[in-house]
């Protein structure tokens, strides 16, 4: 059974790139365009990994991460944050919110896939 990855991302192009990338690697992908929708999808589908954009309209990625991690049933799901490029601080905030790893935007699909594989090894 293929692993399911929830991608929470408001940009259609970014979703499409990740979708094409994950499809080629044989992963199943669930999509959400807002933080609220993402949290609902996580609760409904219990994915194996969450790719969380931080810069989201409405509820941002930090808050969505906190919601997911505060749910005992979902706490074990690894969350990879996709942070905007910044000098510093975003990574620390991502870890603080409960993210397991982060990649900075614009990300290389190749590097992203490597990061995902690292967390879905078993």
């Amino acid at each position: 059974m293929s692993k399911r990855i929830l991608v929470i991302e408001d940009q259609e192009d970014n979703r499409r790139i990740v979708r094409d990338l994950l499809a080629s690697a044989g992963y199943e992908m669930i999509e959400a365009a807002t933080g609220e929708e993402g949290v609902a999808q996580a609760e409904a589908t219990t994915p194996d990994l969450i790719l969380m954009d931080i810069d989201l309209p409405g509820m941002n990625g930090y808050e969505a991460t906190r919601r997911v991690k505060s749910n005992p049933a979902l706490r074990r799901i690894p969350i990879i944050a996709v942070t905007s490029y910044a000098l510093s601080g975003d990574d620390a905030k991502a870890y603080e919110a409960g993210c397991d790893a982060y990649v900075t935007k614009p990300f290389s699909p190749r590097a992203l896939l490597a990061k995902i594989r690292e967390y879905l090894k078993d």
Partner: protein
Amino acid sequence: MREWLPRLVARVPAPVHAKLLVAFLAIVLLLVAVGAAGLQVLSGVNRRAEELGQLQRKIAAYRQLQHDTTAQLYSVASALLVPDERTLEGTLRQLNQFGYDLDRLQFVAKDEVELLVRVRKDYERFIRVVGQVVELIRGGRGAEGRELQLRETGPLADRLERLTNQLVNKAEADMVASIEAGHQAYVTSRWVVIGFAVGSIALALALGYAISWSLVGPVQQMEARLQQITAGDFSQRVDVPNRDELGTLAVNLNHMSEELGRLYRQLEAASKHKSQFLANMSHELRTPLNAILGYTELILDGIYGEPPEKIREVLKRLEMSGRHLLSLINAVLDLSKIEAGQLTLSLTAYSMKDVVQTVLAGVESLAAEKQLALKTSLPPDLPPGKGDERQITQVLLNLVGNAIKFTETGEVRVDVASGDGAFTVSVADTGPGIAPADQERIFQEFQQADGPGARKKGGTGLGLAIAKRIIEMHGGRIWLESKPGEGSTFRFTLPVRVERQVEAT
């Protein structure tokens, strides 16, 4: 006195020169007053001396009168005893002298006039009687003359003596009173002169003090205020009580300060807006760029089927250009974040040795590609540092990356030393070197050294500007030592333990 008098003078709504003029005039008037008081005293003393002289002459005249009366009596008595013509002549001569003495008493005071009138009356009678006595003696009627002498002349002489005694006593009493009054007047005028002199000195000092401090005080206040303005503090106001030119100056100074403060705030806001705009814009630019780079990589990785070699080549160039554009946008974002004060250093413990090794590992392949030797010397006893490890790594990476980029043959050396609580890190290359004119400029935004090959190397021209800001935020300093043709050495110092971020200016 210290406070209110200068304030009082300051509040007088008159120009400074008018105040000074009034003060000088006041002092001059006081001097004139002191002089006038002195003259007054002198003339009083003189008047009293004259009065005393007059009294003395008067007393002398009265005494002379008494003496004359007595002499007259003796003279008549002698004539009665020795009735020869010579004696009689002497007696008549003395009578004339007597009249002369009386005429000298012209200066008598008003209250003495009555006495003197009586003296004159008695005197005239005395002269007449003496004249009759002399006539009787001449006529050989000595017995009748003696009888008249005894009956009339004697009592008249007694009365005259009494009257003149009264005059003398009165004059003497006047003299004593005059001396006493003179002494009193001296005491009074002494105090008046001393009072005027002390008052003048006190007033001159007070006026000098008040006027000079009403001028110096506000000048000092404004001087201090100007220093605050120079230091960039526009919030204070200078408050002087003056209603003269200095008051106007203070009002203008406050106005200028407010205006400067307003402009400064506007400028600051404009600069913040600019930085914010750049930050927003670069963020917006990266979203489509993300898609371009992402799709390009997916195509190159064969996700959509293996692309033909020709397309792959073009895609690689597309990807390179995209990454360059990305680095430009990132650098603009970095700088605008620093300028907007949005960059906060995260100060943690780090190892300078690890930083250098991370950087060297990152550029190893680049140096190897150009066959450049990458050398380093790390003292074994480097102290543990505190600072923003990521930023310090970025700075060093930028310096070493530049050194490799601009050096064609030879080596790139990274040396670290520590001492006096600071690390000194130097990155030396054997590249073309940088002309002195460019050495300051390359730390400014969008500046690269001119000269052959410089533009070809690409890069944003922001790396060194960012590095400089980051080093300065750590409280360090970065500079360059270079001669054209002899390579360049970039050096920066960094406090070993940075406890607080230095605000970017």
